[in-house]
C-alpha cells in the first residue's frame, strides 16, 4: 500500500510565481532562500517560505501558512501586490485552495538595510502518493 505524503507547497508556489511573474518582472528573482550575497543595490528578490502547519487536516491534507516577502533596495510594493493578487485569484496545480492570511506588512532589515514587504496565505493541499 502506498502512503500519502505532504506536498512541498512552498516550492509549488515558488515555481508557479516564478513562471507567472517572469514576463511582467524580468529582473525579479523568485526563490526559497535569500542569496547569501544579497546587499543593498542587488536586484529584487521574492522569497517564498513555509511558516508551518497546524496539522488540523492531516492525513487527508496539509494546511501550511505560506509567507511571501520581497527584498528590494528602497521601498517597492509592486512585487508583493502582484503576487498577492495572483495567488488569491488563480488556480495553482497541486494546491486545492489558497486563502487570505495577513495583509502586507512593511519592514526594514537591520543587517542589509533592504526594504521588506511581506504577506501570508493559508494553503490547503491534499496529500499525495509520491511519484
Amino acid at each position, binding site marked *: 500500500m502506498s502512503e500519502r505524503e505532504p506536498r512541498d507547497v512552498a516550492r509549488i508556489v515558488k515555481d508557479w510565481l516564478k513562471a507567472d511573474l517572469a514576463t511582467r518582472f524580468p529582473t525579479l528573482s523568485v526563490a526559497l532562500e535569500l542569496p547569501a550575497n544579497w546587499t543593498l543595490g542587488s536586484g529584487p528578490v521574492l522569497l517564498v*517560505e513555509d*511558516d*508551518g*502547519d*497546524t*496539522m*488540523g487536516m492531516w492525513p487527508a491534507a496539509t*494546511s*501550511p*501558512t505560506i*509567507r511571501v*516577502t520581497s527584498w528590494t533596495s528602497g521601498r517597492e510594493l509592486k512585487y508583493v501586490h502582484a503576487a498577492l493578487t495572483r495567488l488569491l485569484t488563480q488556480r495553482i496545480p497541486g494546491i486545492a485552495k489558497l*486563502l*487570505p*492570511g*495577513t*495583509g502586507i*506588512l*512593511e*519592514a*526594514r*532589515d*537591520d543587517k542589509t538595510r533592504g526594504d*521588506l*514587504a*511581506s504577506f*501570508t496565505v*493559508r494553503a490547503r493541499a491534499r496529500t499525495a502518493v509520491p511519484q
Partner: protein
Amino acid sequence: MTFKPDHHGMEEVLKSAGVAAEIHALGKRVGDNAGDAVWVDHYTTDRAAASVTIPAARQAKHGTLTKAASAAGLEVKARSV
C-alpha cells in the same frame, strides 16, 4: 427535527472563566513560541481576548508570529469586520 441555537447559553460559555483561561493560555503559548522581544497582552472586550505583538521585521524576515501560531495550532489571518 429543527436546531435552535441557545444564544444565551453560547454567550454564557464564551464569557465563562474556563474559556477565558484557555484564551489566556493560548496567547501565552504563542508568545512563548515566538521567543524574545514579544509582548503578550490579555484583555477583555465583551469576552476574554489576547494579543501577541512582535517587531515587524521579525515577521517579514523570519515569520516569527505565524510560525509561533502554527506551533500552537492556530492560523493567523486578518481580522474580519
